[in-house]
């Protein structure tokens, strides 16, 4: 069964236009002009129960707007959506019983009261019985090591401590679907990996469906089997992370350190007939770009026997680079066409 089902979802905002100059300001006083901005443009996707899905895109791509529609905060302009069997905006109060939400940039704890008091209040708000609450809290507190924090007021917590408490707050009522909007923003590397581990365990043990937006692609690599990429309100990629890497990782880079000075010309000559590109870093260092269809070992074979090599480093394209180039091109389809076009050209040259 699908935990989240979205069909042709659209959200349009009316934005006030401010006309220029004094005359414009006066005109605005009497008649406002509005322009429509479509933040989410007819997107469709579905997420099965128990999946961890990454939702990525540049700032302003429409990620947060989608999350806000999925959590019942915003009412969509058009399209249909169903989350955990509910239409979020229509039955908001019933629906939110089944979901947990963490906004990395907003706190859902009460600033002036102690952490445990916040949890107690949420217990009542979410109508969780005392036994269930105690069991769940003990489990979460132990897992996230919050014992010492429970009696402190929220305003005295560090960001990392607060974020762990936010997670507890979002999970106290044992939701089946968890939405995380930039959960690791501003956190140090230790807390980040702690949170990732925790989320993975949650997903494994309770089968919690997780949808997270992030700008940190390490979150995605650590957690998600699937990625949905958004650009300008449209989905430009929806599929596995491995697929994305394969489709987009256009090649690998090998760095060489030589014992004796080796000329670029020499290197090019050794790998003649191979579609590789050499660049020299200095007299003793060079790197070669090897496209995906070529075996790294073939290239190495040509070089290793002849040069005096002290060190070799193979660098795979990382997700950051892939995502950056997708953002820049604005579509996940283009590069394949580009590669195809390139291959065509090559064939032409060979003939």
């Amino acid at each position, binding site marked *: 069964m699908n935990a989240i089902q979205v069909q042709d979802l659209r959200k349009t905002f009316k934005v006030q236009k401010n006309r220029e100059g004094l005359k414009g300001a006066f005109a605005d006083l009497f008649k406002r002009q509005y322009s429509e901005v479509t933040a989410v443009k007819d997107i469709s996707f579905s997420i099965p129960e128990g999946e961890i899905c990454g939702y990525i895109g540049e700032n302003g791509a429409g990620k947060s707007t989608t999350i806000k529609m999925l959590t019942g*905060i915003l009412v969509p302009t058009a399209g249909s959506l169903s989350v955990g069997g509910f239409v979020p905006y229509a039955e908001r109060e019933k629906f939110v019983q089944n979901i947990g939400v963490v906004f990395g940039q907003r706190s859902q704890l009460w600033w002036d009261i102690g952490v445990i008091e916040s949890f107690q209040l949420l217990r009542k708000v*979410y109508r969780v019985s005392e036994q269930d609450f105690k069991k769940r809290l003990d489990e979460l507190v132990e897992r996230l090591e919050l014992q010492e924090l429970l009696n402190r007021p929220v305003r005295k917590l560090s960001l990392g401590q607060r974020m762990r408490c936010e997670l507890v707050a979002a999970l106290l*009522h044992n*939701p089946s679907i968890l939405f995380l909007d930039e959960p690791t923003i501003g956190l140090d590397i230790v807390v980040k990996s702690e949170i990732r581990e925790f989320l993975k365990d949650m997903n494994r043990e309770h089968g919690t469906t997780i949808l997270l937006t992030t700008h940190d692609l390490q979150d995605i690599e650590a957690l998600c089997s699937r990625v949905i990429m958004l650009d300008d309100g449209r989905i430009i990629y929806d599929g596995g992370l491995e697929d994305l890497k394969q489709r987009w990782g256009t090649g690998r880079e090998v760095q060489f350190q030589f014992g004796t000075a080796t000329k670029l010309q020499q290197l090019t000559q050794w790998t003649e007939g191979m579609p590789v590109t050499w660049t020299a870093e200095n007299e003793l260092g060079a790197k070669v770009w090897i496209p995906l269809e070529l075996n790294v070992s073939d290239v190495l074979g040509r070089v290793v026997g002849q040069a005096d090599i002290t060190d070799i480093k193979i660098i795979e394209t990382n997700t950051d680079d892939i995502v950056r180039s997708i953002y820049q091109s604005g579509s996940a389809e283009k590069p394949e066409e580009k590669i195809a076009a390139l291959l065509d050209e090559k064939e032409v040259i060979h003939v």
Partner: protein
Amino acid sequence: MSEQLNGAVASSGGSSGGSGENGRRLLLGAYFDFIRIRFLTMLAYRINYYSGILIYTLNIGVNYFTWKAIYGNGESLGGFTGAQMTTYVAVSWMARAFYFNNLDREISTDIRDGSIAIQFIRPYNYVLVKMMQGLGEGLFRFMMLMIPGMVIAILLFPVQLPTEPSAWIGFLVMLFFSFLISSQINIITGLSAFFVENNEGMMRMKRVIVDLFSGLIVPITLFPGWLSSILKVLPFQAITYLPGSVFTGRVQGVGIWNVLGIQVIWFLVLLVPIVWLYHAARQRLFVQGG
């Protein structure tokens, strides 16, 4: 939609743990917690409010001496004797110490900085929660501001306390409705931030209108005839003028029921724009700051 004001309390529990009767009791408990927590938070910052007692006493003083000068040797003005006016001024300002709150500002801040999003992911009614927080604040202001302020005012100025128990009971019940109506007007003003980019002007205007038209600064009967007849069909008089009239003994016996009735009617009527605004706002909610 299960978003009606009373619907929130009545809506049944969810899947997690408590459901039905038990769940309802828990949510009701949560609403009471909002009163309690706000009260305790205010108590923690009570030093800020000691100056409030002084300010309200000062306001009473200024008004008392102004009215004294206006009366001169005259007997009565707009149906008020000099003694009644003193009592009216003192009790009106002290009532304000209780019913006044910043719900309008709190709501519009929530809307403008986007933290309203957090409010909408919780299974409760936002407006009702705000009302409860207002009540917590009101309780604090009643005990820490109004009561001590009243004691000081009685010591400093010739205030005549009512002798009839009906006046006391009537006044206290009406004071609670003053709080409800004033908070409702604040909520309406606050929710307007959904519709205008900056409702600062509306909030200031509301404050002046409530202070002036509720009869806090000048009793309604002293306004020109046409204006006072307009004010009698507006909700503002129900905040200060009507309870003040009961306390000063200008309204007695069955009359108390009548003025209380006016308050109850206004309380019910003002629910309509709140429910409407809340629903309309859900449709066009635009969470700032992404």
